[in-house]
């Protein structure tokens, strides 16, 4: 279908973007969610500010012990970056499983996170990584933890007139084992459930376990009950199974035509177990 008429602007700098947003423009990132909604006229913005031509918004760099990823960096750039593959492999693995290659070539990390689709892949990994977001608004910059940023379904703590400028993820320990595992809804590629796991082993004990879950409920979250059940343990199959059963604790599962709430919760438990086992096998 054809979208409703709209004005298009291609600003060159972040300040120009903020100026346009102040006048009511909607930011356009990769357009992988917004454009289809506009074509169906579910979304009818009158002004779009395209972030795709803004200078210095698409980059991947190492700085002060972290990796910094510009908001307009495409999923494909993350998936194929040698720096991310070696220093934050969980993020590269997650990016490689988003949608299809056409979506990964256009869609951006900032766009995905700002949209806050409860079934998006990135938020699971970013929760497991305890990522931070640098947010830019008219009054300056602030840094927000991913858990505070993701408020609810399609709802974030981004204020009107603000954009995500950068995503900060930690440099992974060489010894860590990581895994992102999802059950994709076949038509859209969105996660019915997606589980991101990071494990660091010390001696014969699990010193650190981080588990991020997406697709199961209204927002991606960290399965802290399951993490605590594994930390300090050896990580044998019975312990993994017991911990995986806790990933749904305190969470209300989504139901839709693709999966009932019970089935979705079951998928989460099964795939959490598999993702934990895989991450553990990869840990040195």
């Amino acid at each position, binding site marked *: 279908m054809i979208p409703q008429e709209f004005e298009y602007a291609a600003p060159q700098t972040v300040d120009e973007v903020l100026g346009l947003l102040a006048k009511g423009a909607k930011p356009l990132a990769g357009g992988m969610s917004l454009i289809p909604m*506009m074509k*169906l006229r579910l979304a009818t913005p009158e002004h779009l500010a395209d972030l795709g031509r803004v200078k210095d918004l698409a980059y991947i760099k190492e700085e002060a012990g972290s990796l910094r990823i510009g908001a307009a960096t495409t999923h494909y750039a993350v998936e194929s970056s040698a720096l991310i593959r070696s220093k934050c492999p969980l993020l590269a693995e997650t990016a490689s499983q988003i949608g299809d290659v056409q979506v990964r070539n256009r869609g951006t990390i900032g766009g995905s996170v700002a949209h806050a689709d409860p079934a998006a892949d990135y938020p699971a990994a970013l929760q497991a990584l305890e990522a931070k977001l640098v947010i830019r608004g008219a009054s300056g910059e602030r840094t927000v933890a991913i858990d505070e940023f993701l408020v*609810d379904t399609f*709802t974030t703590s981004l204020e009107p007139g603000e954009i995500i400028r950068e995503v900060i993820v930690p440099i992974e320990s060489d010894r860590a084992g990581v895994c992102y595992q999802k059950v994709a809804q076949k038509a859209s590629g969105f996660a019915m459930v997606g589980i991101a796991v990071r494990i660091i082993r010390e001696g014969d004990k699990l010193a650190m376990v981080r588990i991020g879950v997406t697709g199961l409920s209204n927002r991606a979250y960290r399965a802290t009950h399951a993490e605590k059940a594994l930390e300090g343990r050896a990580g044998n199959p019975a312990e993994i199974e017991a911990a995986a059963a806790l990933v749904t604790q305190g969470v209300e599962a989504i*139901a839709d035509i693709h999966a009932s709430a019970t089935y979705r919760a079951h998928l989460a438990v099964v795939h959490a177990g598999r993702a934990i086992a895989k991450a553990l096998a990869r840990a040195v």
Partner: protein
Amino acid sequence: MKISGSTQLALPPDRAYEMMQDPEVLAKAMPGCESLELIGPGEYRMKMKMVLASLSGAFEGKVRITDQQPPTSFKLAVEGNGKIGFMKGEGLLKLAPAAEGTDVAYEGDVQVGGTLAAVGQRMIDVTAKLMIKKFFEKLAS
């Protein structure tokens, strides 16, 4: 789609019941509600604008309150039509005294049709839950 749940309000049941019958309070609490105007006994005309992520749409419809049993229960029916689809919902709300106010339990059925339902199936359940949550949050404030 069936919807059920419960929430607490920090008000005694009779006061909570009264509030939920007050068009001014309802208009403020319903997400995106722009106006609610009385057209008959327990029946209101509603205009709302739903804004969620990049999705936005104007709806016009009716809100009906029936089977009133103050201060313990009533039925609430909402229907709306807009360019992006239609929605129709009916629910039974039950109020019971609790230690710190009132327990509100709701149970109902929501139908969504049109473009919204054809492409947005994946989002209907979470969106409905978010709307209900926002409604009770605003009601409590």
